[in-house]
């Protein structure tokens, strides 16, 4: 095993490279010294200020006993301060902020909550996508399909973030994991905030209650996952979804957001396997609609949120991957994206060879020289000496002459007439 690991991941390690090394010290003084020398930029202040206020809000609002809350936050602080654990936990701060808000969400008093919408999502879905796609997919159900739908929605979804994190850590460039934690945490955080600010009923609500008004005393429903509970004789999903923290949190779908984020990060590190990851996302989309947990518009909101946050992370935080390198120990440096140099138009205007086409004449015909003989002949003739515009055969190829010719050719070229060969 150790031998295999050595051959697969450590074989191409650059001599003396310490890039992939981890902090192993347990001395909190190191972290405190770092903090003293730390100068926050404006974005850092926004980042930590925002996450800190979310954490503080959850700390105050969460109905758990104060002693537990204080103990939990002290433990978190300790994990942040110890360098060996802090390198993982502190970078996962957006994820902790999301989790704290998510588990506080169920305790918000109904009087502070916004009104629950029932018709908005099915209406938007019909308007933008022609029909309720979840209705289309849930029209006929059977046992094998239930199982196929349950796998990504009820099983993979909960394990995938950890598996993806572990694989990214080993196979991706160093520091990619903190980019993943950043993107994943923020995506979920914005998702839960939207779910709380814009409560909307999922498709199972429409199937159970029609489009009648909803209220916060209602319980959640496992939707199609109830059938899974029946098959296995368990009460897992029925219980879980009945007491869900965000019952009317259909919009956006964080199942879709998480799957998209995982797929985007995996495609970033393993570009050749992209079709496989696209397939996984499509599979999960289908299963959420089949199990009547989300409308297609929720899935889109989740995926678009993920995609936008991923793009931001890619351009401003992620290390660049090297082609064909699938081990963090192989990297000798950690280059970042240069958004200006990656621009396909970069240097286009300053480069002499790239003079804008509008200045040059581009749509002349190749045989325009022959066609232009009609009026002002520039081909050699016996009247060469007498004609002021005429040129000798020998000088036809010289550069001076071509420059003279240019206006002539321009005048005879037929605009917008192209040759298709």
């Amino acid at each position, binding site marked *: 095993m150790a031998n295999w690991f050595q051959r697969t991941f450590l074989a191409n390690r650059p001599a003396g490279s310490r890039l992939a090394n981890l902090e192993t010290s347990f001395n909190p003084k190191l972290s405190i010294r770092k903090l003293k020398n730390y100068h926050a930029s404006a974005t850092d202040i926004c980042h930590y200020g925002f996450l800190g206020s979310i954490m503080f809000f959850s700390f105050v609002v969460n109905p758990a006993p104060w002693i537990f809350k204080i103990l939990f936050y002290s433990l978190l602080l300790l994990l942040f301060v110890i360098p060996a654990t802090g390198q993982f936990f502190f970078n996962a701060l957006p994820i902790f902020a999301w989790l704290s808000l998510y588990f506080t969400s169920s305790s918000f008093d109904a009087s502070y*909550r916004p009104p*629950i*919408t*029932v*018709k*908005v999502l*099915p*209406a*938007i879905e*019909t*308007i*933008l*996508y*022609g*029909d309720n*796609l*979840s*209705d*289309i*997919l*849930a*029209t006929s159900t059977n046992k094998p399909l239930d199982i196929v739908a349950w796998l990504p929605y009820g099983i993979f979804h909960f394990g995938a973030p950890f598996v993806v994190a572990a694989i990214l850590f080993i196979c991706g460039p160093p520091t990619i994991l903190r980019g993943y934690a950043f993107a994943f945490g923020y995506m979920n955080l914005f998702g839960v905030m939207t779910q709380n600010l814009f409560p909307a009923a999922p498709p199972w609500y429409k*199937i159970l*209650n*029609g*489009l*009648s008004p*909803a*209220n*916060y*005393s*209602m319980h959640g429903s496992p939707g199609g996952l109830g059938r899974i509970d029946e098959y296995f004789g368990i009460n897992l999903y029925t219980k879980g979804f009945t007491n869900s923290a965000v019952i009317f949190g259909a919009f956006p779908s964080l199942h879709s957001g998480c799957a*998209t984020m995982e797929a985007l990060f995996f495609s970033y590190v393993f570009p050749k396997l992209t079709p496989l990851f696209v397939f996984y996302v*499509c599979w999960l*989309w289908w299963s959420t609609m089949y199990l009547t947990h989300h409308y*297609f518009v929720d899935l889109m909101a989740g995926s*678009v949120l993920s995609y*936008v946050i991923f*793009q931001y992370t890619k*351009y401003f935080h992620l290390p660049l991957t090297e082609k064909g390198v699938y081990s963090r120990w192989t990297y000798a440096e950690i280059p970042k994206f240069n*958004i200006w140099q990656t*621009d*396909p*138009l970069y240097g*286009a*205007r300053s*480069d002499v060879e*790239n003079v*804008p*086409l*509008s200045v*040059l*004449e581009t749509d002349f015909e*190749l045989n325009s020289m022959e066609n232009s003989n009609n009026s002002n002949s520039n081909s050699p003739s016996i009247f060469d000496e007498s004609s002021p515009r005429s040129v000798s055969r020998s000088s036809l190829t010289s550069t001076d002459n071509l420059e003279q010719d240019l206006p002539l050719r*321009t005048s005879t070229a037929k*605009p*917008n007439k*192209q040759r*298709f*060969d």
Partner: protein
Amino acid sequence: MQQQSNMVHLPQTFLSYPLYIGVEVALGVLTFNKFSGMYGVLALFTGHPLDFVQWTFYIWSIFCLVVFISGIRQVYKPNILLMSTVTFVFSVDTIVSCIYCLWFTAVWFSQEGSTDVTDLKSAGTALGPAHEGTTSTISTKVDTSKSASSGYEFFLIILLTLVPLAVRFYFNFIIIAFQQQLLRSGKFTFDQNDIEVNLHNRNILFKWRYKFEKWCFYLCKRYL
């Protein structure tokens, strides 16, 4: 001389970043949305009834999906022919989507007003709200103080329809602007006499695609 473009007010940057980032975001977002076509077509297997307009909409979505996926793979190293096609299809899709949007809005609101009670066991009807007839039974008993009023719902429906459309138009301008810069920079040219493109031994799909791309290219060049 080449005709100078009238489209001089196109955005030069995407939120102060280079245009290609905007193109990547625009194509990505639209690609996600066009997957709806695939799920719509699955109605063939589930037996959910669809009308003619819906079928054309889903088939058009799948066509756009193919074009946008091929476009998004080339954002960093664009091929002028393909990007012209993407620009053209994207712009047509913007107009087509607006028309479909109007049509489906009319369908939704006309169905919402009707009082037909549909079969409760089905997951939904072909179009419009599924169980309109069942509203009154529950609403009389339960607390509706935290339910959205129909005015609030209507406002959100309109808002959530118009915002994506507005964003879509902005994305469209970004893509057109990117295409314009590609055409104007001398870096990306298309050799119409390229002998490597030998159409004789290619299948008919390839020929059509090539002709269509070339047509899009000249169209873009003419107007951008």
